[in-house]
């Protein structure tokens, strides 16, 4: 990351506010996205179940999302000021997720107690 002041100037002069990257990179990411999508479809096709299924789904999802954000949306070449502004706030959703997992467990338990297993969910 240690650009000399001179290198920074040239870079800005040529690129203005835009970005340009070799087209090979885009093709590589494109192909990777296809492969990862095929892999996640295969998870369903092969009828994998349980922990293996869930972890594979999450791994493929994270890789795909990361590639799209980093390369296609150029996030990898932005300054940290923008990266933090965009990527940190959504982490708040982890809190909501945790709260609602607890809440839904409680709701399910209450429903079993009140209506018995397999009773209609909304009464």
């Amino acid at each position: 990351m240690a650009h000399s002041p001179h290198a920074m100037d040239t870079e800005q002069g040529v690129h203005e506010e835009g970005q340009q990257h070799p087209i090979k990179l885009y093709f590589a990411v494109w192909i990777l996205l296809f492969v990862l999508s095929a892999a996640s479809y295969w998870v369903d096709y092969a009828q994998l179940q349980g922990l293996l299924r869930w972890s594979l789904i999450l791994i493929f999802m994270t890789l795909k999302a990361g590639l799209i954000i980093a390369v296609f949306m150029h996030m990898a070449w932005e300054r940290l000021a923008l990266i933090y502004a965009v990527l940190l706030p959504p982490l708040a959703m982890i809190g909501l997720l945790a709260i609602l997992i607890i809440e839904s467990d409680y709701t399910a338990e209450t429903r079993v107690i009140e209506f018995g297993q397999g009773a209609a969910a909304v009464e």
Partner: protein
Amino acid sequence: MEHPLQGQDQTLQQQGHSGFAADWGSDQRAFKKVSWGKAMMWILLLSDTFVFACFLVAYLNARNSTTVDWPNASEVFALHIGGANLPLILIAIMTFVLISSSGTMAMAVNCAYRKARKATAVLMLATAALGAMFVGMQAFEWSKLISEGVRPWGNPWGAEQFGASFFMITGFHGTHVTIGVIFLVLVALKVWRGDFDRDQRSWMSAGNGDYEAVEIMGLYWHFVDLVWVFIFAFFYLW
């Protein structure tokens, strides 16, 4: 064109965390080397992230709290093709169509920065066509499920919340794709006419070869693809 901040901004020299602190504390423009249009698009996408995240968390809450079995997406979205029953095939094809469109969009952005006017326009129109194809397949999927009796308040296979979650999540995503297709066509036509090459400012371009509107459009389109990645994982595969 000279960078507007060139020569007067010392904080640009700082990288990493000290650059982050300097940029945010500089009492001026926080997102350096990013135009206002691009910054605003990122902020729109950030708020959209919360909308979709809330939908997905709400869906998780509904699915985890019901005592009735959740319908098996693998079977619900299966199609009979040539005598074979292929699980989830329609959704898989939709995924590939959307990823292809993301690829053509990335190429369009690349061409835009090389100021290849016609190639940019053609690639954007190809992206729009793939997006329209996606919406068409979604319309087919919706009519198929509706004809099989899926409603927001019930369905033949299990938990009643399935329909409500399905229509809300895919409906909002489909709306986003549709808006994206319309905007892609609008920007593509402007590029094709050479509006961005003229020595004339507009709300989309500073003129004289300022193609940044294409990259901003690309951000939106890639985001639509990004949301689909999460919907595919959590709603269809889980």
